[in-house]
């Protein structure tokens, strides 16, 4: 079953990491991705730019374009993984693996997908 693992953390804190620290975290997460890919379980993965680069379209009679993310929150959506898991338990284990690779701050939200279109394999 397909799950989205949504990555939340304080983007201020992440933004204060040195390049070396950031690279080290990305390398460890990359190793988790490699294992998932070898197991045939890895879907699209994205790291998002900071919320300061975001623009929101508020729907309504006259849709409104707003600078910034959907909501101002203490921790922000920073990225996501789409993974194929046999059960919620396996999804949680995957989230634990990611946590081991990136232990500091934030949370992973695990949400099953209702519909998934893989798209055309962008890069």
């Amino acid at each position, binding site marked *: 079953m397909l799950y989205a693992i949504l990555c939340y953390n304080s983007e201020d*804190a992440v933004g*204060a*990491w040195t390049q070396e*620290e950031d690279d080290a975290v990305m390398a460890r997460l990359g190793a988790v991705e490699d294992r998932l890919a070898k197991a045939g379980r890895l879907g699209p993965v994205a790291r998002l*730019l900071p919320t300061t680069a975001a*623009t929101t379209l508020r729907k309504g009679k006259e849709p409104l374009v707003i600078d910034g993310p959907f909501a101002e929150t203490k921790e922000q959506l920073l990225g996501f993984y789409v993974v194929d898991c046999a059960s919620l338990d396996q999804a949680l284990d995957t989230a634990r693996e990611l946590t081991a690779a990136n*232990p500091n701050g934030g949370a992973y939200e695990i949400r099953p997908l209702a519909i998934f279109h893989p798209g055309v394999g962008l890069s």
Partner: protein
Amino acid sequence: MSDLAWISAALTSARPQAVGALLRYFRDLDTAEEAFQNACLRALKSWPQNGPPRDPAAWLIMVGRNAAIDQVRRAAKQSPLPPEELISDLDDAEGALAERLDGADYRDDILRLLFICCHPDLPPTQQIAVALRIVSGLTVKQIARAFLVSESAMEQRITRAKARIADADVPFETPGALERSERVAAVLAMVYLVFNEGYSAGADDVAARSPLCEEAIRLGRLLLRLFQTEPEVMGLTALMLLQHSRGAARFDGQGAVVLLDDQDRSLWNRQMIAEGLALIDKAMRHVRPGPYQIQAAIAALHARATLPKDTDWAQIERLYAALEHMQPSPVITLNRAVAVSKVQGPQAALALIEPLADRLSGYFHFFGLKGGLLLQLERREEARVAFDRAIALANTAAEAAHIRLHLDRLMRESEEAGAKTMKNHS
């Protein structure tokens, strides 16, 4: 990443909000800073043991506030602060109250802090020093190293700045709309000065000074959170990201400067470029052009060109013309001339810069460009004169070395021409 590294990052990112709130409580910069330092020391002891709090800033504010109050009490010989174990994480009622109070004010707190650092009574050098110390949390040693002065000189600069702040009549009320728009320009100027200090470093100083570029970009993102809809804030941050994205390509193995046209574009940082382009796209939606946006748009055109020959020089020329209109300056005209030379050829560019000779008589780049244009027109002797003048005015060894490359080429070409002449006559 080690515990300590993450805690350090958490303390750094919480600093503006925490020091800002403590400043609001105590109305004194030194007290606020000291309170924050104390709170950080306690965090370094307690967080590795108890785990990090969910809201580091709120924790630091509460602990900092209590630590400072405690100092006042102890001075008045009253009861001391409860021991570490009783300063719990923010799952208690008082913590929740503190969080609610501080969450609402955090934007204004940070703004007040930035405005104080960029107070009009402070000269730019002091503004930069005090902002980097108080808002960014760089140590005096780091700041001194980055600005190539002694630690004691930088310490003095910061002390003088704080004294001026204390003397100035600093309002602690929320800055009003007019004050905001006036003062944000000063803050942007300060941030760009910090960036340029880092960007203008030669290959030797890069390690010490390029952290300034990163710090300026962090401050830019902080300003974006405070001024979500201001296109010039987007423009400045985009400009810094796009310029810094080229960092790895700007120096060769020997430490000489590599010009934009010659840079290995595969070394450009694509993630920074993506963020810069996103920001300039957002800014342009507002249709409120400004100098930072225009400079960012120029940088964006370079970033979008896979190869130098793909660069949209015509559009760059138009952007420089617009910038010239906004902020007339001979240096901007000089930059525009480079674009003109690509679009209309060296003769037109030369005609554009000739009238600037008086005003730019001491400017290295003027003679560098003039020499280059004359060389393209095969006016070799005049080119050599210009390049000689450029070397005399060069600020760094790297700049001088670059011009010497041109001169060496000129020498070689004239030798080859001379040898050919002799051959033809023998």
